[in-house]
Protein backbone atom coordinates (compact mmCIF):
# COMPACT_ATOMS: atom_id res chain seq x y z
CA UNK A 1 0.00 0.00 0.00
CA UNK A 2 1.41 3.37 -1.03
CA UNK A 3 1.24 6.27 1.34
CA UNK A 4 1.56 9.93 0.55
CA UNK A 5 5.10 10.11 1.88
CA UNK A 6 6.20 7.01 0.01
CA UNK A 7 4.93 8.51 -3.26
CA UNK A 8 6.45 11.95 -3.01
CA UNK A 9 9.17 11.34 -0.49
CA UNK A 10 8.22 14.10 1.92
CA UNK A 11 10.03 13.95 5.22
CA UNK A 12 8.65 15.17 8.50
CA UNK A 13 11.51 17.64 8.99
CA UNK A 14 10.60 19.37 5.75
CA UNK A 15 7.23 20.21 7.21
CA UNK A 16 7.03 23.70 8.53
CA UNK A 17 4.41 26.15 9.67
CA UNK A 18 2.54 26.53 6.41
CA UNK A 19 -0.35 28.78 7.27
CA UNK A 20 -3.65 27.36 6.10
CA UNK A 21 -6.63 29.35 7.25
CA UNK A 22 -9.28 27.88 4.97
CA UNK A 23 -12.61 27.12 6.63
CA UNK A 24 -12.96 24.25 4.17
CA UNK A 25 -10.65 21.29 4.22
CA UNK A 26 -8.61 22.00 1.09
CA UNK A 27 -7.57 18.34 1.01
CA UNK A 28 -3.96 17.31 1.51
CA UNK A 29 -3.94 15.45 -1.81
CA UNK A 30 -5.39 18.43 -3.65
CA UNK A 31 -2.78 20.81 -2.25
CA UNK A 32 0.00 18.36 -2.98
CA UNK A 33 -1.14 17.79 -6.54
CA UNK A 34 -1.03 21.51 -7.26
CA UNK A 35 2.48 21.81 -5.90
CA UNK A 36 3.70 18.73 -7.76
CA UNK A 37 2.55 19.93 -11.14
CA UNK A 38 3.00 23.65 -10.60
CA UNK A 39 5.85 23.64 -13.12
CA UNK A 40 3.65 22.08 -15.81
CA UNK A 41 0.82 24.57 -15.29
CA UNK A 42 3.28 27.43 -15.15
CA UNK A 43 5.08 26.41 -18.38
CA UNK A 44 1.84 25.83 -20.30
CA UNK A 45 0.50 29.16 -19.16
CA UNK A 46 3.75 30.93 -20.08
CA UNK A 47 3.76 29.30 -23.55
CA UNK A 48 0.09 30.19 -24.15
CA UNK A 49 0.55 33.78 -22.98
CA UNK A 50 3.63 34.20 -25.17
CA UNK A 51 1.82 32.82 -28.20
CA UNK A 52 -1.12 35.15 -27.59
CA UNK A 53 1.28 38.10 -27.19
CA UNK A 54 3.10 37.30 -30.46
CA UNK A 55 -0.17 36.72 -32.35
CA UNK A 56 -1.67 39.97 -31.08
CA UNK A 57 1.50 41.88 -31.98
CA UNK A 58 1.51 40.42 -35.50
CA UNK A 59 -2.19 41.20 -35.98
CA UNK A 60 -1.65 44.78 -34.81
CA UNK A 61 1.26 45.15 -37.24
CA UNK A 62 -0.84 43.79 -40.09
CA UNK A 63 -3.62 46.25 -39.29
CA UNK A 64 -1.16 49.16 -39.39
CA UNK A 65 0.08 48.06 -42.81
Amino acid sequence: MYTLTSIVGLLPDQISSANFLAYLDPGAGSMLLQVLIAGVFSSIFFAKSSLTYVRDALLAKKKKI
Partner: protein
Amino acid sequence: MIGQRLSATSFRDPAGFMFVEGGVLYRQINKAYKPHYETLCESGLAEALFEDRLLIRHEVVGGPVYDLRAAHAVIRPELIDFISFPYEWSFSQLKDAALTTLAIERRALDRGMSLKDASAYNIQFQDGRPILIDTLSFEGYEEGRPWVAYRQFCQHFLAPLALMSLTDARLNQLCRTNLDGVPLDLAARLLPSKSKMRFGLLIHLHLHAMLQRSASGENPSKATPAANKKRFSRQALLGLIDSLESTIHRLDRKKGGMGWADYYQNNTYQSQSRDHKRTLVSQFIDEAGPSRVWDLGANVGDFSRIAADRGIFTVSFDIDAECVEANYNEMKRRNETKILPLILDLTNPSPASGWRNEERPAIFDRSRPDLIMALALIHHLVFTGNQPLENVADLFRSLAPWLIIEFVPEDDPQTIRLLAPLDGKHHEYSREHFEECFGRHYSIRHSVPIEGSGRVLYLMSRRDVP
Protein backbone atom coordinates in the same frame (compact mmCIF):
# COMPACT_ATOMS: atom_id res chain seq x y z
CA MET B 1 -32.93 39.43 18.20
CA ILE B 2 -36.71 39.31 18.41
CA GLY B 3 -38.22 38.77 14.98
CA GLN B 4 -34.90 37.69 13.50
CA ARG B 5 -34.34 34.29 11.98
CA LEU B 6 -30.94 32.83 11.19
CA SER B 7 -30.77 31.35 7.71
CA ALA B 8 -30.28 27.60 7.80
CA THR B 9 -28.24 27.68 4.62
CA SER B 10 -25.18 29.77 5.47
CA PHE B 11 -23.55 28.41 8.59
CA ARG B 12 -20.41 26.82 7.15
CA ASP B 13 -18.25 29.90 6.71
CA PRO B 14 -17.34 31.69 9.97
CA ALA B 15 -16.80 34.88 7.93
CA GLY B 16 -20.50 35.67 8.25
CA PHE B 17 -24.04 34.40 7.83
CA MET B 18 -27.45 35.24 6.46
CA PHE B 19 -30.44 36.19 8.54
CA VAL B 20 -33.95 37.41 7.91
CA GLU B 21 -35.68 40.26 9.68
CA GLY B 22 -39.04 41.67 8.74
CA GLY B 23 -39.07 39.52 5.64
CA VAL B 24 -35.80 41.09 4.42
CA LEU B 25 -32.66 39.01 3.86
CA TYR B 26 -29.43 40.35 5.34
CA ARG B 27 -25.89 39.08 5.54
CA GLN B 28 -23.81 39.81 8.61
CA ILE B 29 -20.08 40.14 7.97
CA ASN B 30 -18.07 39.15 11.00
CA LYS B 31 -15.04 41.02 12.33
CA ALA B 32 -12.80 38.10 11.35
CA TYR B 33 -13.58 38.78 7.70
CA LYS B 34 -13.10 42.57 7.90
CA PRO B 35 -9.69 42.76 6.13
CA HIS B 36 -10.90 40.62 3.22
CA TYR B 37 -14.14 42.55 2.86
CA GLU B 38 -12.22 45.82 2.83
CA THR B 39 -9.86 44.50 0.15
CA LEU B 40 -12.87 43.31 -1.89
CA CYS B 41 -14.35 46.81 -1.85
CA GLU B 42 -11.19 48.94 -1.94
CA SER B 43 -9.49 46.97 -4.72
CA GLY B 44 -12.44 47.71 -7.00
CA LEU B 45 -13.07 43.99 -7.42
CA ALA B 46 -16.58 44.11 -6.00
CA GLU B 47 -17.61 47.00 -8.26
CA ALA B 48 -16.04 45.38 -11.34
CA LEU B 49 -17.88 42.11 -10.65
CA PHE B 50 -21.16 43.96 -9.99
CA GLU B 51 -20.80 45.77 -13.31
CA ASP B 52 -20.31 42.54 -15.22
CA ARG B 53 -23.09 40.77 -13.32
CA LEU B 54 -20.69 38.18 -11.95
CA LEU B 55 -21.34 38.95 -8.27
CA ILE B 56 -24.69 39.73 -6.73
CA ARG B 57 -24.97 43.40 -5.78
CA HIS B 58 -25.42 44.42 -2.18
CA GLU B 59 -25.73 47.55 -0.16
CA VAL B 60 -24.26 48.16 3.26
CA VAL B 61 -26.98 48.92 5.79
CA GLY B 62 -26.74 50.42 9.27
CA GLY B 63 -28.85 47.68 10.81
CA PRO B 64 -30.29 45.38 11.90
CA VAL B 65 -27.46 43.34 13.42
CA TYR B 66 -27.88 39.73 14.45
CA ASP B 67 -24.79 39.20 16.60
CA LEU B 68 -23.40 42.55 17.76
CA ARG B 69 -20.30 41.01 19.37
CA ALA B 70 -19.06 39.45 16.14
CA ALA B 71 -20.40 41.93 13.61
CA HIS B 72 -18.24 44.11 11.41
CA ALA B 73 -20.98 45.12 8.96
CA VAL B 74 -24.39 44.11 7.67
CA ILE B 75 -25.23 44.07 3.99
CA ARG B 76 -28.47 43.58 2.11
CA PRO B 77 -27.92 41.51 -1.04
CA GLU B 78 -30.10 41.72 -4.13
CA LEU B 79 -32.62 38.88 -4.07
CA ILE B 80 -32.47 35.94 -6.44
CA ASP B 81 -35.72 35.18 -8.27
CA PHE B 82 -35.53 31.45 -7.67
CA ILE B 83 -32.84 29.46 -5.85
CA SER B 84 -31.90 26.34 -7.79
CA PHE B 85 -29.39 23.58 -7.16
CA PRO B 86 -26.89 21.77 -9.44
CA TYR B 87 -28.97 18.60 -9.64
CA GLU B 88 -31.74 20.69 -11.20
CA TRP B 89 -29.46 22.06 -13.92
CA SER B 90 -28.79 20.72 -17.38
CA PHE B 91 -25.27 20.07 -18.64
CA SER B 92 -24.80 23.55 -20.14
CA GLN B 93 -26.12 25.24 -17.03
CA LEU B 94 -23.57 23.43 -14.87
CA LYS B 95 -20.86 24.11 -17.45
CA ASP B 96 -21.66 27.84 -17.52
CA ALA B 97 -21.71 27.92 -13.72
CA ALA B 98 -18.25 26.29 -13.67
CA LEU B 99 -16.80 28.70 -16.24
CA THR B 100 -18.30 31.65 -14.35
CA THR B 101 -16.57 30.49 -11.16
CA LEU B 102 -13.23 30.31 -12.99
CA ALA B 103 -13.77 33.71 -14.65
CA ILE B 104 -14.41 35.19 -11.19
CA GLU B 105 -11.26 33.57 -9.80
CA ARG B 106 -9.25 35.07 -12.67
CA ARG B 107 -10.72 38.54 -12.00
CA ALA B 108 -10.04 38.13 -8.30
CA LEU B 109 -6.38 37.28 -8.94
CA ASP B 110 -6.02 40.43 -11.04
CA ARG B 111 -7.01 42.44 -7.96
CA GLY B 112 -4.98 40.55 -5.37
CA MET B 113 -7.74 38.24 -4.16
CA SER B 114 -8.76 34.62 -4.64
CA LEU B 115 -11.84 32.48 -4.10
CA LYS B 116 -11.61 30.55 -0.86
CA ASP B 117 -14.46 28.26 -1.88
CA ALA B 118 -15.91 27.13 -5.19
CA SER B 119 -19.25 25.62 -4.30
CA ALA B 120 -21.79 25.13 -7.08
CA TYR B 121 -24.43 26.26 -4.55
CA ASN B 122 -22.80 29.71 -4.53
CA ILE B 123 -23.77 30.14 -8.16
CA GLN B 124 -27.36 30.98 -9.10
CA PHE B 125 -29.10 31.89 -12.33
CA GLN B 126 -30.39 35.45 -12.31
CA ASP B 127 -31.60 37.35 -15.38
CA GLY B 128 -30.63 34.37 -17.50
CA ARG B 129 -27.01 34.27 -16.39
CA PRO B 130 -24.98 32.52 -13.72
CA ILE B 131 -23.90 34.80 -10.89
CA LEU B 132 -21.97 34.37 -7.62
CA ILE B 133 -24.21 35.00 -4.64
CA ASP B 134 -21.67 34.60 -1.82
CA THR B 135 -20.01 37.97 -1.21
CA LEU B 136 -17.80 36.39 1.43
CA SER B 137 -16.16 33.88 -0.92
CA PHE B 138 -13.09 36.07 -1.46
CA GLU B 139 -9.89 36.28 0.52
CA GLY B 140 -6.61 38.10 0.05
CA TYR B 141 -4.35 36.19 -2.34
CA GLU B 142 -1.15 34.94 -0.74
CA GLU B 143 1.66 34.45 -3.27
CA GLY B 144 2.91 30.87 -3.35
CA ARG B 145 -0.18 29.31 -1.84
CA PRO B 146 -2.04 26.66 -3.86
CA TRP B 147 -5.74 27.26 -4.55
CA VAL B 148 -7.64 26.14 -1.45
CA ALA B 149 -10.89 25.78 -3.42
CA TYR B 150 -9.35 23.44 -6.01
CA ARG B 151 -10.70 20.23 -4.45
CA GLN B 152 -14.17 21.71 -4.07
CA PHE B 153 -14.19 23.02 -7.63
CA CYS B 154 -13.29 19.59 -9.01
CA GLN B 155 -15.95 17.86 -6.87
CA HIS B 156 -18.73 20.36 -7.51
CA PHE B 157 -18.12 21.07 -11.18
CA LEU B 158 -15.50 19.07 -13.02
CA ALA B 159 -16.45 15.60 -11.78
CA PRO B 160 -20.21 15.87 -12.52
CA LEU B 161 -19.54 17.54 -15.87
CA ALA B 162 -17.08 14.84 -16.93
CA LEU B 163 -19.52 12.12 -15.83
CA MET B 164 -22.42 13.74 -17.68
CA SER B 165 -20.29 14.18 -20.77
CA LEU B 166 -18.50 10.85 -20.93
CA THR B 167 -20.60 8.37 -18.92
CA ASP B 168 -24.28 9.31 -18.62
CA ALA B 169 -26.11 12.64 -18.67
CA ARG B 170 -28.22 11.55 -15.67
CA LEU B 171 -25.21 11.38 -13.37
CA ASN B 172 -25.70 15.02 -12.29
CA GLN B 173 -28.14 13.39 -9.86
CA LEU B 174 -25.10 12.26 -7.85
CA CYS B 175 -24.94 15.87 -6.65
CA ARG B 176 -28.26 15.28 -4.89
CA THR B 177 -26.77 12.71 -2.54
CA ASN B 178 -23.27 14.22 -2.34
CA LEU B 179 -23.78 17.77 -1.12
CA ASP B 180 -20.08 18.57 -1.22
CA GLY B 181 -19.82 17.42 -4.80
CA VAL B 182 -19.07 14.06 -6.39
CA PRO B 183 -16.19 12.33 -4.58
CA LEU B 184 -13.27 12.18 -6.99
CA ASP B 185 -12.53 8.51 -6.40
CA LEU B 186 -16.13 7.69 -7.31
CA ALA B 187 -15.96 9.87 -10.43
CA ALA B 188 -12.66 8.24 -11.46
CA ARG B 189 -14.21 4.77 -11.10
CA LEU B 190 -17.33 5.68 -13.09
CA LEU B 191 -15.51 7.41 -15.94
CA PRO B 192 -14.52 5.33 -18.97
CA SER B 193 -10.82 4.50 -19.39
CA LYS B 194 -10.65 6.80 -22.42
CA SER B 195 -11.06 9.75 -20.06
CA LYS B 196 -7.44 9.16 -19.00
CA MET B 197 -6.40 10.07 -22.54
CA ARG B 198 -7.49 13.65 -21.88
CA PHE B 199 -4.70 15.53 -20.12
CA GLY B 200 -7.02 17.70 -18.03
CA LEU B 201 -9.13 14.80 -16.78
CA LEU B 202 -6.05 12.68 -16.16
CA ILE B 203 -4.59 15.36 -13.89
CA HIS B 204 -7.61 16.98 -12.27
CA LEU B 205 -9.68 13.84 -11.73
CA HIS B 206 -7.69 10.62 -11.96
CA LEU B 207 -4.36 11.74 -10.47
CA HIS B 208 -6.24 14.02 -8.07
CA ALA B 209 -8.35 11.09 -6.82
CA MET B 210 -5.25 8.93 -6.42
CA LEU B 211 -3.42 11.57 -4.39
CA GLN B 212 -6.51 12.20 -2.27
CA ARG B 213 -6.61 8.52 -1.38
CA SER B 214 -2.92 8.45 -0.55
CA ALA B 215 -3.05 11.64 1.48
CA SER B 216 -6.26 10.95 3.35
CA GLY B 217 -5.85 11.73 7.02
CA GLU B 218 -2.77 13.90 6.49
CA ASN B 219 -2.67 17.55 7.40
CA PRO B 220 -2.80 19.70 4.24
CA SER B 221 -0.02 21.89 5.64
CA LYS B 222 2.21 18.82 5.91
CA ALA B 223 1.56 17.88 2.33
CA THR B 224 2.95 21.15 1.07
CA PRO B 225 6.12 21.96 2.97
CA ALA B 226 7.41 25.50 2.89
CA ALA B 227 10.01 24.74 0.24
CA ASN B 228 7.38 23.44 -2.17
CA LYS B 229 4.92 26.12 -1.20
CA LYS B 230 7.15 28.80 -2.68
CA ARG B 231 7.04 26.97 -6.01
CA PHE B 232 3.32 27.46 -6.54
CA SER B 233 3.68 30.82 -8.17
CA ARG B 234 0.91 33.13 -9.31
CA GLN B 235 1.72 32.01 -12.84
CA ALA B 236 1.18 28.37 -11.79
CA LEU B 237 -2.20 29.30 -10.30
CA LEU B 238 -3.19 31.09 -13.50
CA GLY B 239 -2.02 28.00 -15.40
CA LEU B 240 -4.21 25.82 -13.16
CA ILE B 241 -7.25 28.01 -13.85
CA ASP B 242 -6.43 27.99 -17.56
CA SER B 243 -6.13 24.20 -17.55
CA LEU B 244 -9.47 23.77 -15.74
CA GLU B 245 -11.10 26.13 -18.22
CA SER B 246 -9.86 24.31 -21.29
CA THR B 247 -10.70 20.91 -19.77
CA ILE B 248 -14.29 22.07 -19.18
CA HIS B 249 -14.56 23.75 -22.60
CA ARG B 250 -13.67 20.42 -24.23
CA LEU B 251 -16.46 18.53 -22.47
CA ASP B 252 -19.52 18.15 -24.68
CA ARG B 253 -23.03 17.22 -23.74
CA LYS B 254 -23.74 13.52 -24.05
CA LYS B 255 -27.01 13.03 -25.90
CA GLY B 256 -29.63 10.91 -24.22
CA GLY B 257 -32.73 12.15 -22.49
CA MET B 258 -36.23 10.78 -22.73
CA GLY B 259 -37.02 11.82 -26.29
CA TRP B 260 -39.33 14.74 -25.46
CA ALA B 261 -37.06 17.51 -26.74
CA ASP B 262 -38.38 17.20 -30.31
CA TYR B 263 -41.97 16.44 -29.26
CA TYR B 264 -43.47 19.53 -30.88
CA GLN B 265 -41.47 19.13 -34.10
CA ASN B 266 -42.53 15.51 -34.58
CA ASN B 267 -46.12 15.75 -33.46
CA THR B 268 -48.34 16.90 -36.34
CA TYR B 269 -51.47 16.44 -34.23
CA GLN B 270 -50.23 19.10 -31.84
CA SER B 271 -49.23 21.54 -34.58
CA GLN B 272 -52.85 21.82 -35.84
CA SER B 273 -54.17 23.11 -32.55
CA ARG B 274 -51.03 24.84 -31.44
CA ASP B 275 -51.95 28.38 -32.50
CA HIS B 276 -55.31 28.19 -30.79
CA LYS B 277 -53.71 26.84 -27.65
CA ARG B 278 -51.17 29.68 -27.69
CA THR B 279 -53.95 32.25 -28.02
CA LEU B 280 -55.89 30.72 -25.13
CA VAL B 281 -52.82 30.50 -22.87
CA SER B 282 -52.03 34.17 -23.61
CA GLN B 283 -55.60 35.22 -22.74
CA PHE B 284 -55.63 33.17 -19.54
CA ILE B 285 -52.28 34.56 -18.37
CA ASP B 286 -53.53 38.10 -18.97
CA GLU B 287 -56.67 37.37 -16.98
CA ALA B 288 -54.79 35.85 -14.03
CA GLY B 289 -52.15 38.62 -14.04
CA PRO B 290 -49.41 36.66 -12.22
CA SER B 291 -46.01 37.99 -11.26
CA ARG B 292 -44.46 34.51 -11.04
CA VAL B 293 -45.29 31.49 -13.15
CA TRP B 294 -44.21 27.87 -12.90
CA ASP B 295 -44.64 25.91 -16.12
CA LEU B 296 -44.71 22.24 -15.09
CA GLY B 297 -43.82 19.82 -17.88
CA ALA B 298 -42.68 22.75 -19.98
CA ASN B 299 -40.86 20.67 -22.61
CA VAL B 300 -38.54 23.15 -24.40
CA GLY B 301 -40.35 26.16 -22.95
CA ASP B 302 -42.49 27.34 -25.89
CA PHE B 303 -45.47 28.11 -23.66
CA SER B 304 -43.29 29.38 -20.80
CA ARG B 305 -42.15 32.08 -23.19
CA ILE B 306 -45.68 33.41 -23.54
CA ALA B 307 -45.43 34.41 -19.87
CA ALA B 308 -41.73 35.33 -19.93
CA ASP B 309 -42.20 37.56 -22.98
CA ARG B 310 -44.71 39.55 -20.92
CA GLY B 311 -41.96 40.24 -18.36
CA ILE B 312 -43.29 37.62 -15.94
CA PHE B 313 -40.59 35.59 -14.18
CA THR B 314 -41.20 32.01 -15.26
CA VAL B 315 -39.60 28.81 -14.03
CA SER B 316 -39.78 26.29 -16.84
CA PHE B 317 -39.63 22.79 -15.36
CA ASP B 318 -39.31 19.51 -17.18
CA ILE B 319 -38.36 15.98 -16.19
CA ASP B 320 -36.28 15.49 -19.35
CA ALA B 321 -32.76 16.93 -19.08
CA GLU B 322 -32.59 17.18 -22.89
CA CYS B 323 -35.63 19.48 -22.91
CA VAL B 324 -34.11 21.63 -20.18
CA GLU B 325 -30.85 21.76 -22.12
CA ALA B 326 -32.63 22.86 -25.31
CA ASN B 327 -34.70 25.38 -23.34
CA TYR B 328 -31.58 26.84 -21.70
CA ASN B 329 -29.73 27.13 -25.01
CA GLU B 330 -32.74 28.88 -26.56
CA MET B 331 -32.85 31.23 -23.59
CA LYS B 332 -29.20 32.10 -24.16
CA ARG B 333 -29.69 32.52 -27.90
CA ARG B 334 -32.53 34.98 -27.34
CA ASN B 335 -30.79 36.75 -24.40
CA GLU B 336 -33.89 36.14 -22.30
CA THR B 337 -33.86 37.27 -18.68
CA LYS B 338 -37.24 36.15 -17.37
CA ILE B 339 -37.09 32.41 -17.87
CA LEU B 340 -35.31 29.77 -15.80
CA PRO B 341 -35.29 26.22 -17.18
CA LEU B 342 -34.85 23.52 -14.50
CA ILE B 343 -35.06 19.74 -14.21
CA LEU B 344 -37.93 18.53 -12.04
CA ASP B 345 -39.55 15.13 -11.63
CA LEU B 346 -42.94 16.02 -10.15
CA THR B 347 -43.33 12.48 -8.80
CA ASN B 348 -40.00 12.80 -6.96
CA PRO B 349 -39.23 16.52 -6.48
CA SER B 350 -35.90 17.71 -5.04
CA PRO B 351 -36.09 17.02 -1.30
CA ALA B 352 -34.73 18.98 1.64
CA SER B 353 -31.20 17.90 2.52
CA GLY B 354 -28.07 18.79 4.42
CA TRP B 355 -27.83 19.78 8.07
CA ARG B 356 -31.15 19.19 9.86
CA ASN B 357 -32.68 18.85 6.39
CA GLU B 358 -32.67 22.64 6.23
CA GLU B 359 -29.40 23.47 4.48
CA ARG B 360 -30.79 22.80 1.01
CA PRO B 361 -34.55 23.30 1.11
CA ALA B 362 -36.98 21.17 -0.86
CA ILE B 363 -37.90 22.69 -4.19
CA PHE B 364 -41.47 23.54 -3.18
CA ASP B 365 -40.25 25.32 -0.03
CA ARG B 366 -37.99 27.78 -1.84
CA SER B 367 -40.58 29.93 -3.52
CA ARG B 368 -44.16 29.82 -4.72
CA PRO B 369 -45.69 30.99 -7.99
CA ASP B 370 -48.96 32.86 -8.53
CA LEU B 371 -49.83 30.71 -11.50
CA ILE B 372 -49.11 27.14 -12.49
CA MET B 373 -49.29 25.98 -16.08
CA ALA B 374 -49.75 22.24 -16.57
CA LEU B 375 -50.08 21.77 -20.32
CA ALA B 376 -50.25 18.26 -21.76
CA LEU B 377 -49.10 16.92 -18.40
CA ILE B 378 -52.07 15.47 -16.54
CA HIS B 379 -52.21 12.17 -18.49
CA HIS B 380 -48.51 11.55 -17.77
CA LEU B 381 -49.02 12.07 -14.03
CA VAL B 382 -51.98 9.70 -13.95
CA PHE B 383 -50.82 6.94 -16.30
CA THR B 384 -47.01 7.06 -15.98
CA GLY B 385 -46.73 8.56 -12.49
CA ASN B 386 -49.69 6.49 -11.16
CA GLN B 387 -51.13 9.53 -9.37
CA PRO B 388 -54.88 9.72 -8.75
CA LEU B 389 -56.38 12.97 -10.08
CA GLU B 390 -57.24 13.95 -6.48
CA ASN B 391 -53.51 13.97 -5.62
CA VAL B 392 -52.61 16.14 -8.59
CA ALA B 393 -55.37 18.65 -7.81
CA ASP B 394 -54.27 18.79 -4.18
CA LEU B 395 -50.61 19.37 -5.11
CA PHE B 396 -51.43 22.22 -7.51
CA ARG B 397 -53.79 23.76 -4.95
CA SER B 398 -50.98 23.80 -2.40
CA LEU B 399 -48.61 25.57 -4.79
CA ALA B 400 -50.46 28.43 -6.48
CA PRO B 401 -53.78 30.30 -6.52
CA TRP B 402 -54.12 30.21 -10.30
CA LEU B 403 -53.97 27.25 -12.65
CA ILE B 404 -53.95 26.84 -16.41
CA ILE B 405 -54.39 23.16 -17.10
CA GLU B 406 -54.95 21.14 -20.25
CA PHE B 407 -57.18 18.10 -20.02
CA VAL B 408 -56.12 15.35 -22.43
CA PRO B 409 -59.06 12.95 -23.05
CA GLU B 410 -58.97 9.15 -22.96
CA ASP B 411 -59.20 8.90 -26.76
CA ASP B 412 -56.31 11.27 -27.45
CA PRO B 413 -53.49 9.53 -29.39
CA GLN B 414 -50.99 10.36 -26.63
CA THR B 415 -53.28 8.97 -23.93
CA ILE B 416 -53.89 5.80 -25.96
CA ARG B 417 -50.11 5.35 -26.27
CA LEU B 418 -49.67 5.69 -22.50
CA LEU B 419 -52.65 3.43 -21.77
CA ALA B 420 -51.55 0.63 -24.10
CA PRO B 421 -49.27 -1.21 -21.67
CA LEU B 422 -51.59 -0.74 -18.65
CA ASP B 423 -54.33 -3.18 -19.66
CA GLY B 424 -57.03 -0.97 -18.13
CA LYS B 425 -55.44 -1.00 -14.66
CA HIS B 426 -55.15 2.67 -13.77
CA HIS B 427 -56.76 5.33 -11.61
CA GLU B 428 -60.09 6.78 -12.63
CA TYR B 429 -59.68 9.17 -15.54
CA SER B 430 -62.39 11.10 -17.33
CA ARG B 431 -63.26 14.73 -17.92
CA GLU B 432 -66.09 14.52 -15.39
CA HIS B 433 -63.83 13.09 -12.70
CA PHE B 434 -61.15 15.66 -13.56
CA GLU B 435 -63.61 18.53 -13.09
CA GLU B 436 -64.92 16.96 -9.88
CA CYS B 437 -61.41 16.63 -8.35
CA PHE B 438 -60.20 20.09 -9.34
CA GLY B 439 -63.58 21.65 -8.62
CA ARG B 440 -63.12 20.77 -4.93
CA HIS B 441 -60.30 23.33 -4.70
CA TYR B 442 -60.82 25.63 -7.66
CA SER B 443 -63.45 27.71 -9.40
CA ILE B 444 -63.40 26.94 -13.08
CA ARG B 445 -63.21 30.34 -14.80
CA HIS B 446 -62.99 29.05 -18.37
CA SER B 447 -62.97 25.68 -20.11
CA VAL B 448 -62.35 25.97 -23.83
CA PRO B 449 -61.93 23.06 -26.28
CA ILE B 450 -58.69 23.41 -28.23
CA GLU B 451 -59.50 23.53 -31.95
CA GLY B 452 -58.52 20.46 -33.94
CA SER B 453 -58.18 18.25 -30.87
CA GLY B 454 -60.35 16.72 -28.21
CA ARG B 455 -58.35 18.51 -25.54
CA VAL B 456 -59.73 21.22 -23.27
CA LEU B 457 -57.86 24.14 -21.75
CA TYR B 458 -58.97 25.38 -18.33
CA LEU B 459 -58.33 28.53 -16.36
CA MET B 460 -59.01 27.92 -12.68
CA SER B 461 -58.61 30.03 -9.57
CA ARG B 462 -58.33 28.64 -6.06
CA ARG B 463 -61.42 29.11 -3.93
CA ASP B 464 -59.66 31.70 -1.73
CA VAL B 465 -59.06 33.97 -4.75
CA PRO B 466 -61.69 36.74 -4.84
